[in-house]
């Protein structure tokens, strides 16, 4: 049976999350020719409300894999998972994963300080001596360390910088530090090898 070329649909809360996930997929697969489509709209309530329609739309566009990514923002990840699962009950894309980083996707990015340095072109590697999945607001944490490490010469703009960091990220580092990353990693690896 010939395998269809993978084409990934991403549903996220924010356009920048899509760019970030796209970059992570390219890092995992070492292949930046995989087709990726994404849909997003400000905020999480919109995602839950719209993801059913978006999934159909992504299917129409030819996506055969679906990744829904949603921050947990201090809420119970199980509950979020269930709400999204319910919203996707009629999802035409069979191979799908709902992935929920602890707190925010920035926690994954914090796992590799060197990628932050390279991505944003900092002079030094930022010091992060924390268990990144225990940081309560990874976005603010990242904002602070970029401010400090750059000696106030750079302002963190998540909509641009997340993807820039992800493009330089060492997947092994996230794997090591972020258990919430593992199902996502496994999903991408298993479904994209040709």
């Amino acid at each position, binding site marked *: 049976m010939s395998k269809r070329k993978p084409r990934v649909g991403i549903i996220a809360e924010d*356009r*920048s999350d899509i760019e970030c996930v796209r970059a992570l997929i390219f890092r995992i697969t070492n292949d930046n020719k995989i087709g990726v489509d994404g849909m997003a709209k*400000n*905020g999480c*309530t*919109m995602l839950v*409300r719209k993801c059913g329609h978006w999934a159909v739309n992504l299917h129409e566009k030819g996506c055969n894999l679906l990744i829904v990514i949603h921050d947990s923002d201090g809420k119970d990840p199980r509950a979020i998972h269930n709400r999204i699962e319910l919203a996707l009950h009629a999802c035409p894309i069979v191979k799908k994963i709902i992935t929920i980083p602890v707190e925010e996707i920035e926690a994954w990015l914090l796992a590799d300080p060197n990628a932050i340095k390279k991505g*944003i*072109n900092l002079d030094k590697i930022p010091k992060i001596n924390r268990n990144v999945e225990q940081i309560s607001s990874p976005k603010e944490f990242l*904002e602070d360390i970029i401010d400090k490490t*750059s*000696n*106030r*010469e*750079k*302002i*963190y*703009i*998540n*909509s*641009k910088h997340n993807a*820039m960091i992800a493009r330089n990220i060492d997947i092994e580092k996230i794997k090591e530090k972020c258990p919430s990353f593992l199902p996502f990693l496994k999903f991408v690896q298993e479904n994209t090898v040709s």
Partner: protein
Amino acid sequence: MNLKTFDVHSYRSCQSVKFPLNRDLTGLIGINGSGKTNVLNSIFLLRKISEFRFKYANNRDTEYNTCKIGAVFEHNGISIQLKATIYLEMDERNNDEIISSDFKWKFSNYNSKEWLTIPIEFFSNQFNSSSFHLPVSIRSNIRFSKGSRGSFFEIYKLFHTKEFKKNVQPLLHEVFEFINGINYYSATQFSDPGRCPVSIELEEDRFRRRTHSSSGHEQFIFDLYNSHKQNDKEFIRYFNTIGKVGIGLIDELSFETLPIPSSTYKVRSGGQIKQKNFERQLIVPIFTINGKKLSPNQLSEGTFKTLALLYYLITDKSTLLLIEEPEVCIHHGLLDSIIKLLISQSKHKQIIISTHSDFVLDHLSPENILLVKYLETKGTTVKQLSKSMSSDEYRALKMYLKESGNLGEYAREGGFEYE
């Protein structure tokens, strides 16, 4: 320090307006003509009255428009109240020209029931109680409104009391710094980049203004040139934000400078002629975008406006920034970054915006929304969103935000009465 509440009376469409302000990024919303611009301008009056006055009006009560403003500032838990009567005129471009103003102050840590009349000249940096730097002409002209406390020399005495020196003087200094740091930014100042000159001229390092119509554009290029030359931390931060490691509006920014030798002649009585040389410089700004070198007048309107908005947002030392419709001419992707920058910069300075964009509204929380309306009977009114609806309505809104969608969408769907 931050501005906690503000009120204004008899100013343009604002007959009597009062509203509280949060420290977070705050948005004024309302239909066209409701008075958002007037409200922002009235806050900007605080800055205008803080500038030194050298002109004192006689007959000021009859000849000019009189408006009143009130403000409460907070500094480390101390509240500072200001009441001011302002005499002003409007120039041909509908800008306010302050003729004169009277001030009264109340400090929660000093005689908290008493209003003190302290003219703005007493607030400046140079001023300290051991010396008065005020010219005699101004000193003898400072007039106090009726019923106010005492004369100039009473204030002089007051400034020498120990308690006043300790408790109030540092606050006066803080307030002065704060209101002097209020700035107003409107995208219309930078519309039509075609009006921006391709070069500017400096004379002995000073800016030679050539045209009036392009003053906003020219001023921006001049400010940008100066920052670029100084290359200080603020400029580097700005450049990193707009450049390739940031939102990527431009690749490169440079200025070519060309000296233009000039001289004039001075003729003395008796016919002696003396040549006087001075240095003029031609400054040519060059923006590199996608490898192409462009003059500012060749930039797209959105790019030009964003470059200017972010310049003033990031580099200037404002304490309170008033921004009109940051969304004008900007596509969603870029606007997203701009709003995020507004939010992150609002940690360092208080920021109030006006907006018509539900995309912008999506990023604000309902506590920080002020609804502006124009009522036939009352003129402009400003209310916190939560106060403009019943508690049931507000609860319904909160529920909507939690379960169904965003604030901008709620507004678009008619969730709260806009008009």
